[in-house]
């Protein structure tokens, strides 16, 4: 069992980030905004924890980076989904759907039924 499989939270964050980039390159702040909007701010406590995940994805070449200029004309580092990142998202998403369904069924069920 690799560390990737057991670290559900980290893995889920990665997946959300990749999802956030499907509509085009974004800088870190824009990704944080998107995630907040999409998940109702439940996914991470601190915004700062987004960045180690981004850098990890960059190292794995799932995203690539480039310094550019933001909407308000400031210098910002942009992240773009790579082909590998897109493939990863496509491959992992169905598994996550199953996992989340299974987990929620389990949590909703009555424990005594199976005893």
């Amino acid at each position, binding site marked *: 069992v690799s560390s990737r499989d057991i670290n559900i939270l980290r893995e889920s964050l990665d997946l959300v980030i990749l999802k956030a980039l499907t509509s085009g390159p974004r800088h870190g702040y824009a990704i944080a905004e998107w995630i907040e909007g999409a998940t109702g701010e439940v996914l991470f406590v601190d915004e*700062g924890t987004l960045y180690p995940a981004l850098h990890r994805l960059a*190292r794995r070449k799932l995203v690539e980076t480039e310094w550019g200029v933001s909407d308000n004309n*400031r210098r910002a580092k942009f992240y773009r989904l790579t082909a590998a990142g897109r493939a990863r998202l496509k491959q992992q998403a169905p598994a996550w759907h199953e996992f989340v369904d299974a987990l929620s069924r389990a949590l909703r069920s009555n424990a005594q039924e199976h005893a």
Partner: protein
Amino acid sequence: MKFFDGIRRALRLPPERPQDIEREVDDEFAFHIAMRESSLRSKGLDARTAAVEARRRFGDAEEARQACLDEDLPAFRAARFHDRLEDIARDIRIAARSLRRSPAFALAAATLVALGIGGTTSVFSIVNAIYFRPLPYPKADRIALLQASFADPLCDRRCARSATSAEIAVWRKSARSIENIGTIELRQGPVATSSGSMVLEGAAIDHELPTILGLHAAVGRMLVPADFTDGAAPALVLSYSAWLAKFGGDSSVVGQLATIGDVSYRIVGVLATESELGPPIYSFNVRTAEYILPQTRWPASLHQVIGILRPGANVAEAEGELTRLLREGNGAPWQASVRPLRDALAERYRGSFTMLFAASLVVLLLTCMNVGGLLVARLNDRIPELATRAVLGATRFQLVQQVVVETGLLALAGGIGGVAIALYGTSAARLIPLERLPFWTPIVMDSRVLVLAAVLALVGGLALSIAPLVTLSPPRIASELRALVVGAPTRARGRRIVVGLEVAFSVVLFGISGILIKQLVSAERIDLGSAKRSVVFVALANRGPAKDGGWPDRMIQGLYALPRVHAVAISGLAKRMTATRERRDSVMRAPSALRRAAVYVEGRPDPIPDLLFRIATIVTRDFFTATGIRLVAGRPFAATDDARAPGVIVINETAARKAFGDASAIGKRIRIESGGTLGEWLTIVGVVPDQRQPFSTHPARLEELYRPWGQVDAEPANVAVRVEGDSREIAPLLPKAMHAVDPSVAIASVDPVEVWFDRVMWAARFTTDVLTTFALFALVLACLGVYATVSYVVGRRRREMAIRVAMGATQRDVISSVLRSSITMLLSGLGAGVVGAIIVARLARSMLFGSDGLDIIALGTAVVAIFTAGVIAAYLPARRAAVADPLVSLRAD
């Protein structure tokens, strides 16, 4: 540095250092927080609250930062390593291109490296094979030569003699530090076999020696203890090399009979190659003993005693114990000496080894210097280019890297050539006649030596080539760039210093090799005189019936009858000395106090102090002509120097100097008191040079004296025949002619002097050959180096010369101006070099035994050769530049 970072960011250059990565993370975080702040403000928060809230929402920035860096830095380092490899690949491409642009430089540098590495490796390999290969005997490290010795001024250090059978018996019985003792002695003379009669030289050994040395047979069997018992059937074992050379390696020879004197021996086997017997076990005239046979009677005197130490016993202990036993036996102040084989070996070759080693180092140094000089000259011209790169952001490390890569490329090419030369050099060493080499040494290229030489040559060259880069400080860069913009910089002074130093060092180094060679050549010359190529020595065996008084004349007459014989002489010892073997042995073994002769000069009451004569050599009239010993004063013996005439004597220079100082010895009269009797007055008629031994570590020379045959009753020992032409052709005819005169004459050996010379002098001769090759090599190297550097330096003045031609200077003006400055440069270098060589010669005189100092001819040759090479090197490029279209030349820069 802030400024450069700004430029890098402005140009969006990729990060170069870890700090850049950290800064990027900080920038990214700062952007996020700023964006959050402005978003919060737009929702109505005041600036201060917004700032605090933005930071709170971001969380622990320091932890996030560290986590990001943990992700980024390893990847960055890996990428940077990859980039560095790419840099090196690019540097290799640049270097290859720049070398292609200056093929002459590349070729010269690579050739120098190849010659240096190849030559040094060859010599080191040969030296290593000869001097460091252990002897082939299994317990060689415990084997030692045992002797009894006695301190005496007559001998170099101590007079040594072989231990007697009684002494050996005591040692064998009582010495605890010695495991076993064996003896070996020479046997020479004709051997008759079914394949004919031949003169062979062998060894008679005792029954212990085969065990001590671990001797074994390759074919048939080795001598066994039963062969040494009285009444055993006589058995003999051939050496492997004699079996190949004399019997064609035919194994059917085993079982045949060989008759030596009046005994027929059965050939029972052939010694294995690693069991051959040669120096320092025993010095034969041939390379190794050609056969061994059991020693049946006690040897006369010239045997060698070989002992094997008990494991763990040390030499000093053994010496002490043997000495004690020796003195208990006869009470005389004899001292036992125990010389381990490796020490005996080292002593034998020490002189020549030192020289070869010195010569190899000289050539290696020359290589380093020449390569270094060339690299420095080239680098000096590339400083503007390097300065430009430095300004464009290259670190000093990157500049050094580029230089190192270029040097490395040259080294690679040179190294390949070096290996080829080393392979050729060591295979050429195999052409050295076998008898000149110790018997156990195969010569193969020594790869460790090759690597060592390559590393030394390159590290030296590289260190020299990188040195100028260290001086590439920011102000220097600035001035170089200014020079680049304003016009062609003149670094003439720097270049001149490089060339001057190189020339000077080459001369000094060549001077050293000259000293070494002169040392050897002079040893050779003194020993052999001009007779070297045309004398045959016939040694008589001391057997057979006594010879009557008319024998020498009859023999000389008989030999003069042969064609092309120019002079014949016989030498011997006074009959008084050879009357009986016992007497001779007792004289030979006596402490030399007994042999000492007092010499009185006419008109002085006391004997000459410190004048000691060895036993006189009694010679017939033409002795000096026949042997080629040239008199330095006076006359040789004449027919009138007979028994009726007043006594005459010829002495050597050392004796003359001791007796008469600088005054002439000719005509003076001396008389010799020996064995208690005072001889008659003898008139000195001639003085001959000292017969100096090569590589003698002892400065004192021995006195010698010669007396005419007619005045002293003597026993013939040697016949010298001087011939016209090659003595090797006439040598085979001599025994027959001698037998025609006296059928009973026993001939021990017939040696054309060059063969004899080879036998006696192989080590010195070999060293001389190698050194001569080395010196020539060093000279070629020095000339090449100077040529390359000068022509390179002059070639770089092309632009200046072109400008001068364009301004209207004639070709002649340009060439002569270049030549003038080059000659000044060469002469100052040569001058410094000669001064340096003289200083080194002074030092060498005290360090090298008997060094005669600087060889003017060798040094002169070097100076002329280097000067010529330098002038040609200056002339050719100058002429090219002067003749070329100036515009073309100018555009080339």
